[in-house]
């Protein structure tokens, strides 16, 4: 599996420019807002009164935001929490427990990637429940207060609208956080317990596979008992040490005890199942079949153009350039086998061999070479066999031998200024390897899975706070049901903002919304051109207009998918601090204008109308 995220740049690189851009956008929106406000007042009361009123509002805004009282915000937050409890938020928790109970029946711990299945499930279930709860709570609270007039008793106290908005946001965030933390704790236990298992192994399961000289003990092998629909191959060496082979992406430690002439084998809980790999990504470029530089590889006709392909048996190569490769980062004590390279190579076959026995279709041989980008020195490091849908782990030895017998040191001879290239080639002619930038990475170390799990929930928390901000904003000027619909629209739009942007730019096959609708009505396929004529022209013109709207919406709405770290956790990749920081900044960049806009809507609203 690959995550399509490129490595995040450090904060000092992107932040200054992003901050400047953010300030410019906000400044532009603020000026436009002031102009609209002035125009609307000026039309009724004249231009001078317009300036006076808008100026007064501006001064009040600054005052109301600067003079926020923590005690009042605390009181209003506490009220929001009490109100949420009254609205039976605990029901959501009950639903979550019921879902987990059912999931215990249906989730298969014997699947190929059980950890992925379990983690995806709990993260998705929590995410949906918490986001829906945040949506409903934040959208209906203020309209309900206005409708029941309880807000009259609050706003006639020295409470600023900014405090009401902030109190709501903080209160709902507090209750959501409490719920999320509880769900995370239960989910963690659910995943760990659900995946935990061990196998039995007895002397009867083992048989000698390799005979030494007479009288010497032999290597023995055997299969463990079947648990979670799999068995492991156990190997007991003559020295008495044993190991358990990897199966379903995990292994077990084996402890052998001998007492009273009886040997007992004890397998530990699964190892390597719940991980948080820290990858070091490189940048990818290609060389064509003649060995010349090329922007992309071959297109094999795959609709998903994420990967480019290189042809086997030619000079076509996928080249990754890695930076920051030092002995200190990969010390021999921790990486005795060499530099660990993990890769998920897509295989495109022009012929398949014996397809009646899918498990025995042979893999496609490939080679990895290491090249020093400064000196051009290159040596073939690893020959491997690539299979579809599997992640291979290979090690580049610390010392490599060239065809002419010279021994090169990986770090001294093949790395220059921390830079190193890995060249991937497909050896078998007429077969293809597909590769994308994130397909090959160096596994620098493993971070704590528990911490990564918490980071995954932090991503859900960020989304929840954003939804609360949007919900509270809409609730300041819309009625409850309309605010729910608007917030839901923002959520759905945000989730699909990437698609909306591609639609706005005309990058989606089948045209814009109107053209696509006509194609559905006329049962036309997506790729053929529409019949020229008035209808097509009008549809395409409408799509252009709609495209502008989609562009604006996709630019404004937060891309919720990018705040989700569920894939990182499920696929066992560490969520880096840089990613966390970037997404936290992005959430804050949304929350500040959401708060100010909500304040202004409430400030200019006649509460008793």
């Amino acid at each position: 599996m690959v995550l399509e995220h490129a490595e995040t740049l450090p904060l000092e690189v992107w932040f200054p420019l992003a901050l400047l851009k953010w300030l410019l956008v906000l400044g532009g929106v603020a000026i436009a807002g002031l102009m609209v406000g002035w125009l609307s007042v000026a039309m009724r009361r004249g231009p001078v009164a317009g300036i006076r009123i808008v100026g007064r509002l501006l001064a009040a805004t600054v005052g109301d935001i600067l003079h926020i009282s923590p005690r009042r915000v605390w009181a209003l937050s506490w009220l929001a929490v009490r109100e949420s409890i009254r609205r039976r938020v605990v029901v959501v928790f009950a639903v979550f427990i019921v879902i987990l109970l059912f999931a215990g029946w249906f989730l298969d711990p014997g699947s190929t990637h059980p950890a992925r299945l379990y983690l995806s499930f709990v993260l998705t279930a929590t995410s949906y429940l918490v986001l829906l709860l945040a949506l409903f709570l934040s959208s209906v609270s203020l309209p309900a207060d206005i409708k029941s007039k309880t807000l009259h008793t609050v706003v006639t106290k020295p409470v600023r609208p900014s405090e009401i908005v902030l109190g709501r946001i903080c209160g709902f965030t507090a209750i959501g956080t409490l719920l999320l933390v509880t769900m995370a704790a239960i989910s963690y236990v659910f995943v760990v317990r659900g995946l935990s298992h061990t196998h039995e192994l007895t002397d009867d399961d083992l048989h000698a596979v390799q005979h030494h000289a007479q009288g010497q003990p032999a290597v023995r092998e055997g299969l463990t008992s079947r648990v979670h629909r799999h068995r492991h191959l156990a190997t007991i060496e003559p020295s008495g040490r044993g190991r358990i082979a990897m199966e379903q992406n995990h292994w077990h430690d084996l402890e052998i005890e001998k007492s009273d002439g009886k040997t007992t084998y004890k397998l530990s809980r699964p190892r390597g199942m719940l991980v948080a790999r820290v990858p070091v990504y490189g940048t990818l470029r290609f060389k064509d079949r003649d060995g010349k530089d090329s922007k992309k590889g071959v297109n094999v006709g795959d609709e998903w153009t994420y990967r480019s392909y290189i042809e086997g048996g030619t000079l076509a190569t996928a080249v990754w350039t890695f930076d920051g490769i030092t002995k200190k980062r990969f010390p021999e004590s921790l990486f005795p086998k060499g530099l660990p390279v993990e890769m998920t190579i897509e295989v495109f076959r022009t012929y398949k061999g014996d397809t009646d026995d899918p498990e025995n279709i042979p893999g496609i041989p490939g080679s990895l070479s290491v090249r020093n980008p400064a000196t051009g020195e290159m040596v073939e490091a690893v020959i491997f066999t690539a299979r579809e849908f599997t992640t291979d782990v290979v090690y580049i030895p610390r010392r490599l031998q060239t065809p002419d017998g010279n021994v090169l040191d990986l770090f001294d001879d093949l790395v220059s200024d921390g830079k190193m290239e890995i060249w991937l080639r497909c050896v078998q002619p007429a077969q293809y390897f597909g590769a994308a930038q994130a397909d090959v990475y160096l596994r620098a170390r493993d971070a704590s899975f528990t911490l990564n799990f918490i980071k995954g929930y932090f991503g859900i928390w960020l989304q929840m706070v954003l939804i609360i901000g949007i919900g509270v904003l809409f609730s300041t000027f819309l009625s409850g049901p309309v605010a729910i619909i608007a917030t839901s629209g923002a959520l759905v739009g945000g989730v699909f903002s990437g698609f909306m942007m591609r639609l706005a730019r005309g990058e989606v096959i089948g045209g814009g919304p109107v053209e696509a609708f006509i194609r559905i009505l006329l049962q036309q396929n997506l790729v053929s051109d529409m019949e020229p004529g008035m209808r097509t022209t009008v549809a395409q013109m409408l799509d252009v207009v709609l495209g502008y709207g989609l562009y604006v919406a996709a630019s404004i709405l937060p891309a919720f998918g990018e705040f989700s770290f569920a894939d990182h956790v499920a696929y066992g990749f560490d969520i880096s601090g840089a990613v966390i920081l970037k997404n936290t900044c992005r959430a804050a960049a949304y929350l500040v204008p959401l708060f100010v806009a909500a304040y202004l809507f409430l400030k200019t609203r006649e509460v008793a109308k």
Partner: protein
Amino acid sequence: MQSDVVIETRNLTKVYRDFWGRQKVRALKALDLEVRRGEVFGLLGPNGSGKTTTVKLLLGLLFPTSGQALVFGRDATDVTKNERIGYLPEESYLYRFLNAEETLDFYGRLFNMPRAVRRQRAFDLIELVGLGWARKRQLKEYSKGMVRRIGLAQALINDPELILLDEPTTGLDPIGTREMKDLILRLRDEGKTVLMCSHLLADVQDVCDRIAILYQGELKELGRVDNRLKMKEVTEVRATVLDQSAMDEVRRVVEKHNGEVLSMGNPTTTLEELFLKIIRQSEEHPGRRVRGVNIGDRGSGMGIRE
């Protein structure tokens, strides 16, 4: 030096419009009003006359279409003025999932009051409104009168200088009504300013120093209650009970001075007085049926036209 004028409206007008900006109703028309420090001011008028709209404009719950509403010399939309104001809405719009103590603590926090002050003030006010026995009960379990009382307590949590009461006696029983009126008078004696709006004329008459009568959004009458209600063409004499000969003699004296006796006999009291007396006696002698209560036995009264 503090200004003597606490509330001032200048040409205050409110027009309600529909979604499209079309005029629906002109709720208040060019109201000019002044309420001075230390007086109980009554806003009178039938339903829909603009009383509540005026109060909402003074509190900043509504914005004026034109004109100005000033409270303590500040614009009514300025929230800082609320630090010196207490407001009891027409119906007590309180959070029904809180109990009495939590309610007062919450509103105390909104005034930025320290914890100790808040607690003491909440305790005193709960006792004042007679809800000490129900302080831990959620408001959803309260009767209408109890909610009204706790509503009054929240209006006084900040020891306000100006108290706005919208239909203060609505929902209260006669005892509660009397206590509310007594409290209003006590607040006035403490130097506070009270603005109340009501259509219960007897209540207004009992407590207000000055009144304004609104009708269809326009100010129709403004002045002191005692001046406005004094019947200058009638003289009233009240005496302890007289026998028939004494009454005839009084009649002759009146006629001698060219007056006309309009009525003479035992005056009736109000039902409120009767009710309160029965309750008082019942409390003094629990379990005994109150008999023979006749509040009108205190004397005779007569009205004379001069």
